[in-house]
């Protein structure tokens, strides 16, 4: 029964996320792969679901509208069936391979089942709110109502769609998104499908842990940043023009980040700044992007205000922002503690170690090192933010570092893989 349910959800994910927008902007780009298509549709659809939830609709009504949207798109594509280009047959085994790995991960989730501390305490009560057909209006009655809820909403939605009534079925979507985002990183490689498959499985082996799927939202941040990494590579390294598809995708990723976790807001702005300073996209588009991210952030604040959800971050461990207290917190002891925990977390992060290895290799063996400055910029801002969050925290520092830092380092880690991919692509490694 449960195995059938996993297959059923697989079928749902593949069918739903293969349905394109009716007036597809995808046609603007001929180099579109099936993974690009899935990625774009996932991001579009999760934003649609989010938008519907903001209208204070219960999950059942959201599902009606969502299914109607999919039906309209499907009918449109049936009309234009002769225009649809199917993926080349010789690529299909790569996609099948991704699905098989995804199935393995789903099995692990179905077996392991436990929810992590944060999930039990905060995120799952939001899932239950949606699952029990309540609207965002009622989120005020859940713990830490200032937390965003996109991940919980999706968890609840796919749990509702599933015919097996246990919560873990909603988390299978996380596994699907994770595999698609790793596939996005893999597709940057300019090598054969076999090598991409090897690279894909290496990345899974280095990053996969059940704890990431135990209900925390860091995995979603990781996935969204992985998808962004591919756009960075195309826009900044390949110096391609920012297409409408990429612009739209970036906007929706930033919006999804804002509604996934508190720190997602910071990542949304960092992504915009990276494009602003390092890409050659024109100023109008850069300003438009920044303007939209600010607009999305203001929308979030207004939605929280409108539905009486908390906005302040005080209850999350930051209470005293007086100058005196901030100066006191910048003690040598605290700085050394945070830095030592950073070092331990880096040593535990496989993506960081892999990136570092390739960075050293490029320094040792080649003089013409690729331009990684935007990656350094991204991490300087990200880690600067994480460092500030810890140093200014009023809660017990060591406990906060022990329970949170590894996850934060993990969620920002996909850009390290760009160093690896760039090295392989730039030096045309014959594997």
């Amino acid at each position: 029964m449960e195995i059938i349910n996993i297959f059923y959800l697989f079928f749902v994910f593949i069918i739903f996320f293969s349905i394109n927008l009716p007036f597809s902007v995808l046609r603007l780009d001929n180099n579109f792969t099936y993974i690009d298509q899935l990625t774009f549709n996932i991001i579009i659809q999760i934003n649609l679901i989010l938008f519907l939830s903001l209208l204070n609709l219960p999950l059942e009504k959201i599902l009606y509208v969502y299914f109607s949207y999919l039906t309209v798109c499907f009918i449109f594509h049936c009309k234009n069936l002769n225009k649809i280009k199917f993926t080349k047959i010789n690529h299909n085994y790569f996609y099948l391979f991704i699905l098989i790995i995804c199935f393995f991960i789903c099995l692990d989730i179905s077996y392991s089942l436990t929810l992590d501390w944060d999930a039990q305490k905060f995120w799952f009560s939001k899932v239950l709110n949606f699952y029990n057909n309540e609207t965002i209006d009622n989120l005020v009655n859940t713990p830490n109502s200032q937390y965003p809820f996109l991940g919980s909403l999706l968890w609840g939605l796919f749990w509702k769609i599933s015919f097996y009534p246990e919560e873990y079925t909603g988390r299978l979507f996380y596994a699907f998104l994770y595999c698609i985002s790793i596939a996005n990183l893999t597709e940057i490689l300019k090598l054969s499908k076999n090598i991409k498959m090897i690279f894909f499985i290496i990345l899974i082996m280095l990053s996969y842990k059940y704890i990431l799927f135990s209900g925390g939202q860091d995995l979603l941040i990781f996935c969204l940043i992985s998808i962004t990494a591919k756009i960075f590579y195309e826009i900044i390294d390949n110096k391609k023009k920012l297409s409408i598809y990429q612009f739209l995708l970036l906007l929706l990723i930033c919006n999804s980040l804002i509604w996934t976790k508190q720190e997602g807001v910071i990542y949304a702005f960092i992504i915009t700044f990276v494009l602003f300073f390092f890409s050659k996209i024109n100023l109008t588009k850069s300003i438009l992007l920044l303007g939209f991210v600010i607009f999305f952030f203001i929308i979030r604040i207004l939605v929280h205000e409108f539905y009486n959800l908390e906005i302040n971050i005080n209850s999350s461990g930051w209470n005293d922002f007086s100058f005196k207290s901030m100066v006191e917190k910048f003690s040598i002891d605290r700085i050394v503690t945070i830095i030592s925990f950073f070092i331990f977390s880096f040593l535990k992060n496989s993506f960081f170690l892999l990136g570092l290895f390739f960075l050293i290799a490029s320094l040792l063996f080649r003089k013409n090192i690729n331009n990684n400055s935007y990656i350094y910029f991204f991490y300087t801002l990200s880690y600067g933010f994480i460092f500030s969050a810890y140093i200014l925290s009023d809660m017990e520092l060591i406990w906060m570092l022990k329970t949170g830092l590894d996850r934060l380092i993990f969620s920002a880690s996909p850009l390290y893989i760009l160093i690896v991919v760039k090295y392989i692509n730039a030096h045309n490694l014959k594997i």
Partner: protein
Amino acid sequence: MKNNIFKIFILVSLILILYKNVDFFRKGYFVLTKDYNQRFKESYEKDQFSGFCSKESHGYVHYIKNKYKVEESPVIINLEQTRRKLPYWIFYNLHGIVDKDKLILLNYNKSYDNLIKNFTIIDNHINKCLYLEKKNGNN
């Protein structure tokens, strides 16, 4: 040709390593052969913060939910000295909705006898985890 065989060899080896590391075969087998309730119980028995009837006792709470077909969460009290999370979420109810006439006591011992004098014991696991119902007429 040789190159292709080498790539396939690498790929198969990596799949096998992943397979072994995550132990997919055993887990897949258990998903097929054990039902959800049994897997839930076993998973939380391995959890460092929980057990069947120790620490946060997810296993016992889940067992009560299934055995007595409880739909609305009873009040849950954990009497352990260490502060523990209370696993209300197991009942899949909205946050804060509880049936105040029913009580689950976790990590109970005889020194708390006063606490249960107004209750009838419905389920008792080794005098440590109890499921109780308020006696008629008591508030």
